[in-house]
């Protein structure tokens, strides 16, 4: 009997499949955006931040009456798929959104790898994609016309850290060119691009890389790298490996009591290093796209602080920058729709290219390649159990403590 049942289920599934490709596109007064984000797999956490950012902006925009395109007002909706954190799946789902669900406007996925997989598809179909989480530089060297990013690209992530260390080289008792840097980057598209950027910045000051380790994706132990740090005594250790890398690094640095003057990393807030490690996270420098203390604001959300409050009320935790930049991506679309005056992919693309707006997340203006050149990257430092913006000086809350006081 069971065999028949299996067979029947399969047959029913097969029969019903074509109907899935139903009409999703703007019927009545709804604009549907499409997004494949990571709801499962290793990027789940950040995929969720991304999705919540999108959702919050959509909710806010709809509450404020939607977007006016031409003479009509539209509500916004988002059609999601789960890319399972694998690029192979991402490309497939993009195709699906565009071809089967008739999506004409795409939002980005989480992570550079996934964006890399999806961008060629949207480009081929001439569907604009505004993405908020693909920072890899190589996304913007392909002459792509339909890709726009609200975030600063990866090579800028840790520029602040290198600059600060160079500036404070005196306190380390060295010249900038004598500074020794240890690097541990996860072996994935995003972190490897951050590494490229760091190498460029280091070259500028003539710093030397004494360790250049690549962390495996199934990371659970970085003793080998930290032992090297102990042996070679670098002045600066840089770690980048999404949330998992950040958490593992801080945990083991503290456990092994590895001492070195400066620690810089990415994904501090999405890994919640302060909540997890308390004092152990103190003085860590963290790359961030955005911070609630920044002085940006817009009409929809109000100030950055207001956004942070709203987000926390809605989801129960402070927004990591991944959520903020994602919310901004939806705002960019809303703005472009209104300026385009009609829902034509080509027209909207041109409107997107001409974007020049201020949001709670910061100014947004795309260059030829589609990356946001108006907003600088920033750097947090964990000081007294709080994230304080310490760089660039224009938006800084306070002075950085570099090197960290030896204990």
């Amino acid at each position, binding site marked *: 009997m069971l065999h028949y049942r299996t067979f029947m289920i399969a047959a029913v599934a097969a029969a019903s499949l074509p109907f899935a490709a139903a009409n999703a596109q703007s019927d009545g007064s709804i604009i549907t955006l499409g997004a494949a984000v990571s709801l499962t797999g290793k990027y789940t956490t950040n995929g969720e931040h991304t999705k919540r950012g999108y959702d919050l902006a959509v909710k806010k925009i709809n509450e404020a009456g939607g977007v006016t395109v031409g003479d009509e007002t539209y509500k916004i909706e988002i059609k999601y798929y789960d890319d399972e954190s694998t690029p192979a799946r991402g490309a497939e789902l993009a195709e699906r959104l565009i071809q089967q669900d008739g999506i004409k406007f795409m939002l980005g996925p989480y992570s550079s790898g996934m964006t890399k997989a999806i961008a060629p598809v949207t480009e081929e179909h001439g569907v604009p994609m505004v993405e908020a989480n693909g920072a890899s530089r190589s996304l913007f060297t392909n002459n792509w016309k339909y890709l726009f990013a609200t975030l600063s690209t990866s090579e800028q992530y840790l520029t602040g850290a290198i600059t600060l260390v160079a500036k404070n080289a005196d306190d380390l008792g060295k010249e900038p060119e004598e500074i020794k840097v240890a690097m541990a980057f996860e072996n994935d598209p995003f972190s490897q691009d951050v590494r490229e950027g760091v190498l460029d910045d280091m070259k500028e000051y003539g710093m030397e890389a004494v360790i250049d380790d690549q962390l495996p994706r199934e990371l659970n132990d970085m003793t080998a790298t930290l032992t090297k740090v102990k042996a070679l005594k670098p002045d600066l250790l840089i770690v980048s490996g999404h949330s998992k890398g950040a958490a593992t690094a801080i945990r083991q640095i503290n*456990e092994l009591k590895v001492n070195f003057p400066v620690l810089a990393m990415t994904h501090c807030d999405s890994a919640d290093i302060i909540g997890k490690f308390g004092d152990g996270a103190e003085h860590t420098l963290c790359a961030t796209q955005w911070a609630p203390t920044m002085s940006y604001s817009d009409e929809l959300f109000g100030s950055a602080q207001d956004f942070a409050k709203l987000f926390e009320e809605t989801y129960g935790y402070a927004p990591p920058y991944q959520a903020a930049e994602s919310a901004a991506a939806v705002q960019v679309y809303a703005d472009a729709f209104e300026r385009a005056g009609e829902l034509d992919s080509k027209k909207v693309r041109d409107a997107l290219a001409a974007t020049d707006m201020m949001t709670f997340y910061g100014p947004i203006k795309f260059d030829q390649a589609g990356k946001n050149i108006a907003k600088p990257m920033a750097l947090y430092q964990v000081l007294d159990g709080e994230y304080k913006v310490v760089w660039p000086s224009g938006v800084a809350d306070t002075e950085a403590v570099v090197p960290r006081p030896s204990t």
Partner: protein
Amino acid sequence: MLDNIEILVQAPVITLDLVLNGLLLGAIFALAAYGMALVWGVMNIINIAQGEFVILGGYVAVVMAAYGIHPLIAVPVAALLLYAIGWALYRTVIFRIVDRDLFTSILATFGISIVLQQLMNTIFGGNVRIADAGLGTVFLMNGMVSLAQVKLLAFALAAVLGSTLVVFLKRSRLGQAIRATAQHPRAARVLGIDTDRVYAATYGLNAAICGACGALVAMAYTVHPYIGLPYTIRSFMIVVVAGLGNLAGVIAAGLGLGAAENVAGFVFGTQYQLAFVFLLLVVVLVWRNRRLARKRGYLK
């Protein structure tokens, strides 16, 4: 690579540091591997969901820590909970594949592992979690060798658990039944042993070992719904090297693997650490096969 070796040669104390830290991690692998060897040996099942059991145990510690309970208490709690889960899994799925070939068990437990990953992701979220045991660090050799107390504790607990298990299997009625079933299921059945119950207990016991192991992992390392695989794979590797029913071998292989892996990560770079483990697995198997193969040459 060469400069890395140079560092090791110039400062042997670093090698010591690497090896000791590797041994501590290896003890945890050995514990999980022991469970795998038990299930493999007694039931002829390769349990790919091993790593997921470990991570589940880790989440028990994480959740308890979140409620302010010291994660050490989580070790027995996780073991008990996981025993129940293992037992339930046996009663629903595993009992149907006990007498089938290993390939079936690999595929079926792989399916289970996917389901468990996903459920953990849904229940606990995709974030990296830890359980803080609030312990310090021990320094040796002028601070050149540093060992986290929590890892030492994990090591000690792993040792205690391991030896308890051995005593349990030797002395207790259930343990004797398990050993009898492993040696000859049909004979055991004839002698009045309810092999079905023995299997259920064995599978539950394995899950319990993994659960305790996971609580230690959460204290000493990190947990994440999708990070079970490394534990499965290393358990596997250890069992293959050590052979079934050879506790001393499992411990030696576990500790050795932990240490070798750490040194390899240092020398070749961490990006090749996992590749090293797997290639080692392949090399060990090929070498074993060569050794077993007859020495007769091919006809020219």
